[in-house]
């Protein structure tokens, strides 16, 4: 994406290819083309581009995907630190 890449090697996205039914829903909803189809199943093509939005996990009827979803927002993390809760946008 225009040379914009974020931190490598930290994303929590996991895919269980054996559980995948090949419905392609995750490929459709991913806004960063993290997933692709290979041999009629989803495959993680670019894990470091994942923003952990959770769209693929939410729309995987087979439960083949997992991620710790969240908002990549420092202000939200600070808000969470200050209030002792999960990261929140404070609104």
């Amino acid at each position, binding site marked *: *994406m*225009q*040379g*914009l*890449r*974020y*931190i*490598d090697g*930290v*994303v*929590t996205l996991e895919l269980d290819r054996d559980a995948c039914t090949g419905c392609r*829903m995750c490929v*459709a*909803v*991913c*806004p*960063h*083309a993290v997933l692709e189809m290979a041999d009629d199943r989803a495959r993680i093509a670019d894990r470091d*581009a*994942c*923003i*952990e*939005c*959770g*769209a*693929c996990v*939410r*729309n995987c*009827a087979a439960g083949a995907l997992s991620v*710790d*979803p*969240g*908002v*990549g*927002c*420092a*202000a*939200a*993390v600070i808000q969470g630190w200050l209030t002792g809760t999960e*990261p929140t*946008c*404070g*609104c």
Partner: protein
Amino acid sequence: MSECCGPACCGTAVEEYPYGKAPYVRGSVSTLVGDIPIVATGLTTADRLGVWQVRLGIRRGHYRILPGLYAVGEPDDTAPVLVTANYKLSFDALRRELAGRDGWLLILDTRGVNVWCAAGKGTFSTDELVRQVRKTGLANVVSHFTLVLPQLGAPGVAAHEVRAATGFRVVYGPVRAADLPAFLDDRMRATPEMRRVRFGVADRLTVAGTELVILRDPRVLTGAAAMVIVAALGLLPWQPILLTLAAGVTAVLAGALIVPFALPWIPGRAFAFKGALAGAAVALVLLAIAGGTLDVAGSAAVLLAVTAISSFTAMNFTGSSTFTSLSGVLWEMRRAVPLQIIAATAALVALVVSVLW
């Protein structure tokens, strides 16, 4: 995730447009479930002005649409159903692209928050979609079973659960409303390009401005006023006071404008690091212009403070970007925040040393 701390995030509104009498309503269409308001597809000057008011944080409270079913054109039971949030800018972006078309708009109650952010917060959700489908009697309005959702609503909506609960099939449309005509014309197929979130220079500058509101923050203004009063009363000399204020403004501008603008070209991946580089660069420029009268401690104070503030401000831009993950933000914050605190503290010590000696 994107724009979540950006302009459209915090829906604190209480005011809503009335159903049926709002300025954008152009009549009504009779259906089995009653009269449905028809909305205009052309935006008025007031609509366009509203975009800038929202971006600048003014009058955000006026920007909710009453949730429910609306019409564009002269839709019949075969017209597509397009779902969006009750944030007026989302609603405006959608109806503007539907000029010359017939369709139904199903507006979910996201408390005036945009689609992507609301999906992350869980208000643009499976439950809310199911609730609105049932409440509006949509199955009595259309004879098909397809709902077109913006792709960025997917973090909040499970298509298979919507189908199980309502019988309606969810089709995820393009990320941008501008691609909707092409999507609809191609039998509801999105190209890979339509599915990608971008973050070009225009996008970056649009959301960058909102970080500047810190310069309008009452606490910041009070602090600045207090420093001016201290100088006016002769308690401290003007020179360090003015330089402190200039450094503060410069630092925020570096983190909130230079970093968003030059994001792809500043080295590094972490926003805090990019912000520190931009801050150090502008601090050196500031010192070259105004630092001739400063001693070493004073120069160090400016350099450290501007670097730390710019780093912090740029770090907060992660929430307005479209390609950051929470894991990545935590990774950089664990490293950057202690350094920012150390630099800010050292700057304060250096400032005191510079003033007293």
